[in-house]
């Protein structure tokens, strides 16, 4: 009876996935051991994998991109990924612009890995993850991590089932990090970061992505003492004073210290705060440009929620204000609106650095020397690339499955073509002359991306298993 019910539900949900969109591969969305067993919602899975909760897709919160535009973007991103070092060193502005427009979902995982420098790290430390993965973790950390596994995005199909593939991989990544940096151990806020990465890439890649975020983008955020996040709270406050004085004064007046409202925002890189489409766009920009994006998003939210006299009147006390900052109005979180505001806000990496120095001075006066010396923060892809030497080999794409499609004779790197033309046309309409690489009838955009919940071991390469190639080809990662 029980089993029948579960089967019934599984069938229903699988159907909903099948009908919901071409982005999903109906074959691989659920493994044979259904990830949704025991989940009682009858709601549909959205295109991001959410089956419920506040972050689920809604047409009001997300911005639609026409399919043709998406395909053009994919072609451009494929080209950039193929000539990554050149693009970063010579045409970084264009890369940034494309991150701001949103990375195509099919290539997001790969792009994030390149942007963060995780790709180079992985190549230069091949087998490292494997080694860490095979080791036993410190029981102290293992215990804490295990308590958190079922508490990350409980409404995402990947993480909904206890002991399912998502939770298993999350454990592997977080445990590996505690072995990689035993001095740091595990901080609870790392779990949502790792989970977001795992929604887009296999465990090994997610591990290196996490390493880069913890060491380069947000150094010290997760270390014992949590000084870096508190310091960033002060920086945020100081920037707010400049960007929106009324909001700043209001928070000062009611003694609302930054760590009362920004801890989760920053430590989880807004992954638990915004609708999912906005989370992804924020991460696209964050991984490209670094922490200034966190500050900008935070400032936009504060400005929107506390920016006018009427709004401040409505929250006369400390608690009311904090309630307000917790119940952010959906219209401000809407993808198009939020990204536009973030891009408009003139806060640069230099502003952040300048404020960092001032706040650090103040901190030393009031709290004494920082007890944890974190390495300098790196503001995005370019800084990381120049700090971490790499070879061309490190950047070579190594897809596990190679799809051969007819190559149009005039296909050259956009980089090469543009260079020849010597002028760079701006973004408004640059895509029309790019040949569509998806000429084969069966290759839809979805072929490039499937949120893959299988573990690395299950993810077969063509060499390992030729027989499964036709099916696996849809899982081109």
């Amino acid at each position, binding site marked *: 009876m029980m089993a029948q019910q579960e089967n019934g539900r599984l069938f229903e949900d699988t159907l909903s996935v099948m009908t919901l969109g071409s982005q999903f591969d109906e074959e691989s969305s659920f493994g044979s051991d259904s990830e949704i067993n025991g989940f009682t919602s009858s709601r549909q899975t959205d295109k991001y994998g959410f089956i419920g909760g506040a972050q689920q897709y809604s047409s009001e919160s997300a911005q639609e991109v026409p399919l043709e535009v998406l395909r053009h973007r994919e072609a451009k991103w494929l080209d950039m990924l193929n000539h990554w070092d050149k693009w970063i060193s010579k045409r970084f502005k264009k890369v940034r612009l494309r991150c701001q427009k949103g990375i195509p979902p099919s290539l997001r995982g790969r792009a994030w890995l390149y942007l963060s420098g995780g790709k180079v790290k992985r190549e230069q430390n091949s087998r490292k993850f494997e080694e860490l993965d095979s080791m036993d973790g410190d029981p102290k950390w293992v215990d*804490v991590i295990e*308590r*958190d596994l*079922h*508490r*990350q*995005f*409980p*409404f995402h199909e990947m993480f909904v089932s206890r002991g399912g593939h998502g939770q298993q991989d999350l454990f592997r990544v977080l445990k590996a990090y505690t072995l990689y940096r035993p001095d740091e151990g595990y*901080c*609870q*806020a790392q*779990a*949502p970061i790792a989970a977001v990465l795992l929604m887009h890439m296999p465990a090994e890649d997610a591990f290196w992505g996490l390493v880069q975020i913890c060491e380069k983008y947000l150094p010290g955020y*997760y*270390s*014992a*003492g*949590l*000084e870096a996040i*508190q310091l960033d709270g002060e920086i945020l406050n100081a920037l707010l004073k400049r960007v929106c004085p009324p909001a700043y004064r209001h928070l000062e007046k009611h*003694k609302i*210290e930054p*760590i*009362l409202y920004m*801890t*989760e925002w920053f*430590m*989880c890189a807004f992954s*638990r705060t915004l609708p999912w489409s906005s989370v992804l766009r924020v991460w696209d920009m964050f991984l490209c440009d670094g922490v200034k994006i966190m500050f900008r998003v935070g400032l936009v939210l504060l400005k929107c929620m506390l920016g006018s006299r009427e709004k401040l009147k409505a929250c006369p006390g400390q*608690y009311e204000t*904090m*309630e307000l900052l*917790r119940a952010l109005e959906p219209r401000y979180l809407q993808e198009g609106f939020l990204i536009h505001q973030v891009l408009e806000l003139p806060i640069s990496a230099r502003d952040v650095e300048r404020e960092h120095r001032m706040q650090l001075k103040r901190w030393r006066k009031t709290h004494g020397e920082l007890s944890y010396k974190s390495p300098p923060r790196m503001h995005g892809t370019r800084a990381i690339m120049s700090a971490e030497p790499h070879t061309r080999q490190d950047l070579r794409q190594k897809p596990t499955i190679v799809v051969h499609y007819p190559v149009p004779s005039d296909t050259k790197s956009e980089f090469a073509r543009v260079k020849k033309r010597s002028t760079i046309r701006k973004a408004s309409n640059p895509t029309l002359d790019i040949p569509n690489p998806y000429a084969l009838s069966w290759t839809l955009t979805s072929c490039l991306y499937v949120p893959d919940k299988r573990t690395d071991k299950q993810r077969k390469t063509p060499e390992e298993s030729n027989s499964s190639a036709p099916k696996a080809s849809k899982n081109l990662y």
Partner: protein
Amino acid sequence: MQNNRKEHLYKILVIGDLGVGKTSIIKRYVHQTYSTNYRATIGVDFALKVLNWDSETVRLQLWDIAGQERFGNMTRVYYREAMGAFIVFDVTRPTTFEAVSKWKEDLDSKLTLSNGQSIATVLLANKCDQKRDFLTNNSLKMDQYCKENGFVGWFETSARENININEAANFLVKHIIASENDILKSVVPDTISPQLNSDKEMTCSYWLSLD
């Protein structure tokens, strides 16, 4: 008439080790729900509960504070101006009970009432619907523990089965009001302090005497 109603606003902390059920207790108390799908609390979270207390209104701001040790560096800010606290442990995990005294020390070292007293704190032995194999089945020992460690009382609770949560909250509010009256008394010595309403007596068998 509504305007004549006296209002009290109390900030109450809910602290204790990671995964002991702080968020679940608050959700049960405020929203009358229970779920296994709560996210781990990062930093701090809040909820508001409004109670009718005799002829008065009591608003409780419940502050749900992240349980991982490394957030301990932020607790000074989170604790500020709180009037009462729950310290929660998980009856199935002895280590979470061992951490109780650490939480109590942290609280007392960072926060005192204007008369120098520590704030009213109630100990919650949560997940009592589950199998447990230590100490809380010895209520005499627990009473003793509370006395020695400055808790005004303790309750066995279950957020899942909705056991004793309301009782514990009422008990804490009663103590907060009592300690507030103490403070008033010491500030204005000639005020007559109102007696606690005896029909509000708690059904719980664990509470210690108010002195």
